[in-house]
């Protein structure tokens, strides 16, 4: 059985197919039609709903793409869909959208409203560091763009929606969700405390399991090799919504408290398999502020609140953005099975296109990232057709240390350049121990073009990938020398917001 709050009403469900999406639950089972399907792939945001959960004694409001979120993922959370926002009058974010003429055809609007609602719930902390302390319009717009980058509108051109967001952020009353927060947290805590069964949902021979510890996951995997592991499911669910494949047996890693750990010890950042991109953002950027831009451009706020860092590595896509980062940072994976636990350097995990070193019955328990080394110069460059919410054509991550002008240590990770995320060994060899000079960079760039033979696809041609990868090396050199601006978009470093 799974239990969650839908608005303020408690819902218990035990009979449902394992692959039921939140969108299907709302539209088909609850007959709530305010949440729309635009793409069923998590790319347009029309289906955005908000879920809340308790983090460190506070309720956190997170936008989620209902089309690729499983019903089972709602356990222990509060689900808020657009129907619940307005009471007698429209919610402040809805009123702001009306006042700003923020809707035209209206189909994307409920999704925007929900993303705005999640942003609105952060307004006190934002305003705390923000407008009152002299936050510029640019920074304000940046926050709005980050919050709404996963919602597509084909009609308005977005300007009125940005205006609506600013209006909503300046609202100084409290809405019904804020008023009820204490009560909501109590109800959610109660659900958590009473949680006993690991059978979440079952129906028509399908099962959605919520194991309680990592060993149980391992045993389930051993017993049911056909089962699929799900954490965020932002990639896995596409098999269901796009290829119409059933997902009859799911094991939810997010149900496992011990996989949700996020620790910083003397030597490593340790990120458990159930940790979302959003949750990992602060510790990661505290250690490596240079990753801020890449994280903000990773999918969308919706995807980041649902998907996990480890999941992005586990599925071994050649175009995921975390693998090249982790390769450059020298991270490793802790793999667990019913009988053993082993640690693997991340570069050894990727064998071939979507083929990994994972043995049958094994799963990734955690990601271990070394702490920052002194003198590290780190750059993570993402090249894509669109700046926001796009998959990289090329992702290049350079981690190096300099001794005067000599490169003493260098690791380079690339995404989009081969069938797997790859380390640029040849280029590293060329740079290692060498003196920085234009000639060196030219040599390395030439080598880079030889080392990789990327493919052409809908995102970019092989030629562009090769050229741009080499040019990113040139950009790196310019940034090392701090000669002149190299970026068309303002570079945002990690700061206190969020």
């Amino acid at each position, binding site marked *: 059985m799974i239990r969650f709050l839908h608005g303020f009403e408690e819902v218990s469900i035990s009979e449902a197919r394992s692959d039921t999406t939140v969108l299907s639950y709302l539209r088909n089972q609850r007959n709530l*039609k*305010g949440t*729309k399907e*635009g*793409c069923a*792939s998590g*790319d*347009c945001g*029309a289906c955005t709903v908000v879920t809340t959960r308790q983090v460190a004694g506070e309720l956190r409001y997170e936008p989620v793409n209902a089309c690729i979120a499983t019903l089972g993922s709602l356990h222990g959370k509060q689900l808020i*869909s*657009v129907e619940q*926002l307005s009471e007698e009058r*429209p919610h402040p974010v*809805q*009123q702001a*959208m*009306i006042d700003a*003429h923020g*809707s*035209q*055809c*209206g*189909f*994307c609007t*409920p999704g925007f*409203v929900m993303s705005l609602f999640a942003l609105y719930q952060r307004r006190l902390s934002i305003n705390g560091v923000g407008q009152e302390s002299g936050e510029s319009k*640019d920074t304000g717009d940046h926050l*709005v*763009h980050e919050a*709404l980058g996963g919602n597509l*509108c*084909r*009609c*308005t*051109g*977005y*300007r*009125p929606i*940005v205006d609506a967001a600013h209006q909503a952020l300046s609202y100084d009353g409290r809405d019904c969700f804020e008023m009820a927060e204490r009560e909501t947290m109590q109800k959610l805590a109660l659900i958590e405390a009473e949680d006993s069964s690991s059978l979440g949902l079952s129906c028509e021979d399908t099962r959605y399991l919520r194991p309680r510890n990592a060993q149980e996951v391992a045993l389930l995997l051993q017993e049911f090799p056909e089962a699929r592991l799900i954490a965020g499911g932002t990639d896995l669910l596409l098999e269901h919504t*796009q290829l*119409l494949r059933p997902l009859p047996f799911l094991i939810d890693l997010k149900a496992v408290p011990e996989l949700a750990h996020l620790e910083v010890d003397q030597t490593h950042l340790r990120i458990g398999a159930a940790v979302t991109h959003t949750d990992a953002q602060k510790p990661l950027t505290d250690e490596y502020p240079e990753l801020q831009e890449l994280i903000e451009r990773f999918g969308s706020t919706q995807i980041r609140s649902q998907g996990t860092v480890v999941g992005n590595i586990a599925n071994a896509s050649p175009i995921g953005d975390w693998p090249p980062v982790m390769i450059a940072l020298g991270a490793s994976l802790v793999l667990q099975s019913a009988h053993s636990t082993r640690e693997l350097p991340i570069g050894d995990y990727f064998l071939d296109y979507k083929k990994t070193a994972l043995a049958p019955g094994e799963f990734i328990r955690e990601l271990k990232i070394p702490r920052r080394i002194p003198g590290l110069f780190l750059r993570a460059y993402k090249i*894509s*057709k*669109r*700046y926001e*919410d*796009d*998959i990289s054509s090329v992702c290049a991550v350079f981690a190096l240390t300099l001794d005067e002008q000599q490169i003493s240590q260098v690791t380079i990770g690339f995404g989009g350049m081969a069938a797997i995320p790859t380390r640029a060994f040849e280029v590293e060899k060329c740079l290692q121990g060498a003196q920085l000079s234009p000639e060196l960079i030219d040599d390395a760039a030439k080598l880079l073009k030889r080392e990789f033979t990327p493919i052409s696809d*809908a*995102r970019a041609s092989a030629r*562009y990938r090769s050229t*741009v990868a080499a040019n*990113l090396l*040139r*950009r790196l050199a*310019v940034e090392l020398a701090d000669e002149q*601006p*190299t970026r*068309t*978009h303002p570079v945002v470093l990690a700061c206190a917001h969020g």
Partner: protein
Amino acid sequence: MGTRTAHESAEKHVTGAATYIDDMLAPANTLHAYVGLSTIARGRISAMDLAKVREAPGVVDVLTRDDIPGHRDIGPVFPGDPLLIAVGDEVEFHGQVLFCVAAESYEEARRAAQLAQVSYEELPAILSIAEGLEAESFVRPAHTQQRGDLKKGFLNAERSLQGRLEIGGQEQMYLEGQVSLCVPEEDGGMLVYSSTQNPTEGQKLVAEVLNVPMHKVTIDARRMGGAFGGKETHANQWACLAAIQASRTGRAVKLRLARAEDMRATGKRHHFLSEYKVGFDDTGRIHALDLMLAGGCGMSPDLSDAIVDRAMFHSDNAYFIETMKVVGHRVKTNTVSNTAFRGFGGPQGMVAIEDILDAVARASGEDPLTVRKRNLYSEEGERNVTHYGQTVDTRVLPVLIDRLEHSSDYWQRREQVRAFNTQSTILKRGLALTPVKFGISFTVKHLNQAGALIHVYTDGSIQINHGGTEMGQGLYTKVAQIVAHELQVDVDTIRCTATRTDKVPNTSPTAASSGSDLNGMAALAAARTIRERLEAFASEHFDVARTAIVFTRNHVLIGDQEMPFPELVELAYMNRVQLSATGYYRTPKIHYDRQAASGRPFYYYANGAAVSEVVVDTLTGEYRVERVDICHDVGRSLNPAIDIGQIEGGFVQGMGWLTSEELAWDDRGRLLTTGPATYKIPAIGDTPAIFNVELLPDSPNAEETVFRSKAVGEPPLMLAISVWSALRDAVASLADYKLHPPLDPPATPERVLLACEAVRSEAQAIPSESDEH
């Protein structure tokens, strides 16, 4: 009138209460239909085994070509669009509909549709415009417009240039995909809820495929979740298929395409090829132009004749070209039939000529704005007649450009951009001002008509209905404002009801920016009839002169007394005055002689101009639009908030077309960009950081349009040409503005980087040579 009234559905949009077709409470036992698509671009179907489809769980009905009761072709203007194809037929594109299956649930129908076993004898496919031209493969004959003797024109020109541009297509990407819900009625009738811009055409085609008279079919269209031309003709097929299955099963049937099938099986903006030779003098004034425009139409004519015509009508944009010949080809390819998309060919024609203006400017060494201004239509020397013989009202655009030039600080920023570019080697800035002159009216004359129906109820509340459809553009709001103004009542006493073919018949598609021009006038006529009846009644009843009766602020002044509007209505009813009226409008003055390629196809032109500034990373091709200033002519605005929404939205959509939106097919004609994961429309951060939009003040339409307003749906899309031009300006700085960078739209980062490389290597190859060609 002229107020910033909110969209009539705004509150429903934000609360999720606005009902789209997939949100409607469907009748009990509604079936769900889905289509099976071809998997090759061209070939003959040798076998089609649907046994597994029929046996799949939940399946109730499978529809194939031979089961169609009536017409099998649903071509809207010319034949060529088979509803379904079967064994022996030729597949003409990858994604063509083969059959349709109805099942108890949406998922069951979709899964069943995947189970067909189809074999083909493949035939060679034509996938590009160039291949089509080579093979002389056309869906319709070419059309030519010509003024003057080209030979002489080129002799008069001091210099000449030749060039070629491939212009990409564009997916409409309405957020609500194609959907229809058909409910069988008595007498063999069919009620069709369709997300369509063209209810009457849907009605006609559903009647034809069902083999029943049109009066048996009603189309109901309350609102669309976006359309942009993509639901002008390409909504019909889904309505027809669902209607036949509803008729066969006696159950309601809904057909909703998932995004991937929507993108594969429905048409897009035409891609175009432009080839030109232009003759000009040292000042950059153009004397002669020989232009070939070839539209990639896909596999059928659909609306391509009119679309390529409109490209030709706009291949002058705002410029007088003394001697000009433009040939428009309608190329047939084995790809989905391309269709209407905001601008309807106009944007492609305009991109072609703006490319030429930039090329001429680089060659003559003048600033592109100087060259553009030098070539504008003007009264001077009778340079005010287009190549198809229509006289241009030159009072608007020069004033508008002048105003924008100042408000945007063009010349000072030009200096700043040049200064920046000499300092910065990696980042380069670009700046461009481009104008828009867009012809308003359907070029198919008979479509320029509209009807409306108004009911005034005895409590004074009003219902209006008209032939226009609401797709987000605010048509219902504007029409309600017009009626409210005419009857001097509050707009919230008026309810616009769903567009239905049983209320207002024989309507034109809501397209060509004509929605409020046509339907607003028809509604105004109906409201005027009501007002006149009430006036006549009051005059007689109270024995006062007609001139002493004034409608004002929900009241009617009748001589000395003042009566609330509802009271007069009630009184009129008691005295047997008809409180329902129809209104009708047809656009005057328009004509075009296709034989002579001359006439006045447009009632008037809408004008605008935009200045865009970009910054380009010449190492990666990435760029950012930093500032946009727009001045646009909407005549006297009916609703400034809605008009500005159309301008901003159109601009950003046009910017997407010319920058990040890239359609990709594999070498066998299979579409690769089948969803928003790979097809990238602008996101919120792509909106220019500084975005100043002004409506040209004090500029009522010189023609007698509704309240002297101007159409605003399509023209602003083309303001985005300034972004594309600014990108090339930035790249041109790499060779000191002496070269015209090759940058075919969409200018993706990849293409921008290629252009940078091309300009750099050409500049190195001929370092000191001048720009002779």
